[in-house]
C-alpha cells in the first residue's frame, strides 16, 4: 500500500472508531446524539495544544485530551440525560456548535480559523490506528454481550420496565455517554495525527450526522453492520473519486446518494442492512483460513 491508500485506511478506521462509539450510544442505549464530532474536536485540540504549548509528550497529552472530553461529557450528560430523549438530542446539536466556536474564541492558542498545525508526525500510524480500532471494536463487542449491554438494550426498549429491575437508567446512560465520547476523542486524536492539520469547520454537525447515517445503514442493532458500513462508506467515495456516472462525478453526489440509500433502508428495512445479525464466530472460522492466506500479515492479529 502506498501512503495514499494508508491515509485512506486510517481515515476509514477513524470512521469505524467513531461509529463504534455511536453504536454504544445509539444502537445500545437509544440515545440520539448529533454532537459526537464536538468530542473529536475536544480530543484533537486538547491533545495537540498540550503537545505544542506545554511540551507534554504525545501519549500523556492524548490521555489528558480524552480526559477533557470525558469531563465535558460528564457535565453535559449529568445535566441532560435525566430529561426526555428529545432534549438530549437537541442539546447535543447545540453542543456540536458551541465547541467549535470555542476554538474560534481561543484563536490566540488554537490559531482559530487559520487551522492548527505542528502536529507531530507519528511513524507507523496505520498500525497504531488499526490496533486501536480493533481494541475499540473488541471492547464494544464485549460490552454488548455483558450485563451492561443487556441493561442498555433493556433501557432502550423500555426505560420504565428497566427501572423496575433496579437499573439506574440515568447513571447507566451517563456512563455510556462518557464512554462514547471518550471513544470519539480518541478518534479525533487519530484524525488529527493523520491529517496533521485541524480546523474548527471540520468538526461540524454534518460529521456527527454522517456517523448516524453510517450506523443506521449497517443496522443500528448490529455492531458488525455498523463497523462494516462505517469502513466501506467512508472508503467508497475515494475509490469512486474519478468515476463518472451519467456525466457527473460520483464523489460530488455521494452524500446525496447515501441519504437516498438510508431513506430506502429506513422505509423498507428499518433494521439496517445487517438487521440484528452479528458476524458469527462459526461463520468466520470457515472463512478465516482463506483470509489468512490472503493477508498473511494479519494472521497474528486474527
Amino acid at each position, binding site marked *: 500500500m502506498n501512503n495514499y491508500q494508508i491515509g485512506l485506511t486510517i481515515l476509514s478506521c477513524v470512521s469505524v472508531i467513531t461509529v463504534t462509539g455511536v453504536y454504544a450510544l*445509539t444502537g445500545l442505549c*437509544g440515545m*440520539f446524539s*448529533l454532537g459526537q464530532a464536538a468530542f473529536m474536536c475536544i480530543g484533537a485540540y486538547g491533545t495537540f495544544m498540550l503537545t505544542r504549548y506545554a511540551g507534554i509528550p504525545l501519549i500523556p497529552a492524548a490521555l489528558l485530551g480524552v480526559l477533557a472530553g470525558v469531563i465535558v461529557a460528564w457535565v*453535559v450528560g449529568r*445535566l*441532560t440525560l435525566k*430529561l*426526555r*430523549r*428529545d*432534549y438530549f*438530542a*437537541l*442539546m447535543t*446539536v*447545540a*453542543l456540536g*456548535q*458551541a465547541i467549535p*466556536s*470555542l476554538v*474560534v*474564541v481561543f484563536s490566540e492558542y488554537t490559531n482559530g480559523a487559520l487551522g492548527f498545525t505542528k502536529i507531530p508526525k507519528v511513524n507507523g500510524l496505520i498500525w497504531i490506528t488499526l490496533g486501536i480500532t480493533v481494541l475499540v471494536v473488541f471492547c464494544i463487542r464485549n460490552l454488548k454481550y455483558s450485563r451492561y449491554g443487556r441493561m442498555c438494550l433493556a433501557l432502550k426498549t423500555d*426505560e*420504565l420496565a428497566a427501572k423496575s429491575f433496579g437499573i439506574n437508567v440515568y447513571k447507566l446512560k451517563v456512563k455510556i455517554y462518557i464512554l462514547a465520547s471518550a471513544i470519539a476523542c480518541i478518534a479525533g486524536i487519530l484524525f488529527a495525527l493523520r491529517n496533521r492539520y485541524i480546523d474548527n469547520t471540520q468538526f461540524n454537525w*454534518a460529521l456527527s*450526522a454522517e456517523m*448516524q*447515517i453510517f450506523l*443506521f445503514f449497517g443496522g*443500528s442493532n448490529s455492531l458488525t453492520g455498523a463497523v462494516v458500513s462505517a469502513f466501506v462508506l467512508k472508503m467508497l467515495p475515494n475509490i469512486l473519486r474519478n468515476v463518472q456516472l451519467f456525466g457527473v462525478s460520483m464523489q*460530488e*453526489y455521494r*452524500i*446525496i446518494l447515501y*441519504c*437516498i440509500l*438510508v*431513506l430506502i433502508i*429506513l*422505509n*423498507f428495512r*428499518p433494521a439496517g442492512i445487517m438487521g440484528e445479525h452479528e458476524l458469527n464466530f462459526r461463520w468466520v472460522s470457515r472463512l478465516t483460513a482463506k483470509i489468512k492466506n490472503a493477508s498473511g500479515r494479519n494472521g497474528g492479529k486474527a
Partner: protein
Amino acid sequence: MTGKLFIQLLVNGISIGAVYALIAVGFALVFSVLKFSNFSFGGTISACAFIGFFFQKAFNQPPYWITVLVSSVAGVLIALTVDLLGFNRIRKKNSPKIYYFLSSVVFAIMIEQILTVFYGTQMYAFPSIFATTTLQIGGITFSKLDMTILAIAISLLVILIIIIDKTKLGLAIRAVAINSNTSRLMGINSSVIIVLTFAIAGFLGGITGVMLGQKYSVYASLGPSMMLKGFIASVIGGLGSLGGAIVAAILLGVVEIFATFVFGAEIVPIVLFGIMLIFLLVRPQGIAGRIAEEKA
C-alpha cells in the same frame, strides 16, 4: 449605552426574534403531534427560499405576494413529500422515535446537499422590494424589511394561534397532540391531522424561506443555520408549546443581539448553549410550563 441605542437594539432583537419565532413554531407544531424534533425543517426553509427566488426570476418579478404564495405552496409540497418519503412508513410501522430523528436528519442533509451541489457555487439575492431600505422614527432607524417581516410574522402567528385555539381543526390537532391513539378512537382521523400539521408547518416554512432569503440572500445553509435558534427557542419555550416557543424566540432574539453587542459574536453560541443548559436544569418544563411526559 444610550437610551436610543438601547431601543434600537431592542427593535433589532425583536425583529430577529420574530424570524426565530416562525421557525420555532413550525418546529413546535410538528413536535406537538409527532413528538420528535424535525431537523428537516431547516432544509425546507432553504429550498423554499430557492424556489421563491427562481420563481421571481423566471416570471420577471411578479407581484411580491405571488412569490410568497408560490413559495409557501412549495413549502407545503416539500413538507408533504418529506412526510410521505420519510415518516409515513415509519409511523405506520410504529417504529421507535429514533427513526424519525434519523429520517429528519437525513432529509436535512440531503436538501442542503442538493442545493449546494446544484446551486451552491453562486450567490442569489432577491431584488429589493423597497426603494429606500430604512425609515427614521425619533432617531431610531427601522429597516423597512425587518418591520415587514415582523408584521407578517406576528400576523401569521396570531392567525395560527386562532386556528389552534378556536377551530375544529385546531381542536383535532390538540387532541392528536395529547394522544393520537385515543383521538383515533374518538373519531379523529389522526393520520390526516398529522399530514395537515406537516402542511401547516411547511406553509410557515415557505413564507419563512422567502423572508429570510429577502433579508439574508439565498444560500443552501440559510435554513439550517437559523434552525438551531428555532430549536433552542422551542426548548426554552417548552417542547411542543406554541405560545412558549413564540415568547422564547423573541427573548432569544433580544438576548442574542444584546449578547453580541456586549460580549461579541464569538461568545454567542456558548451563551445560548449555557442558557439552554440552565433552563433545562432550572425549569425543564420550559416557559410554557408544560412538559410532554413520557408515558408511564
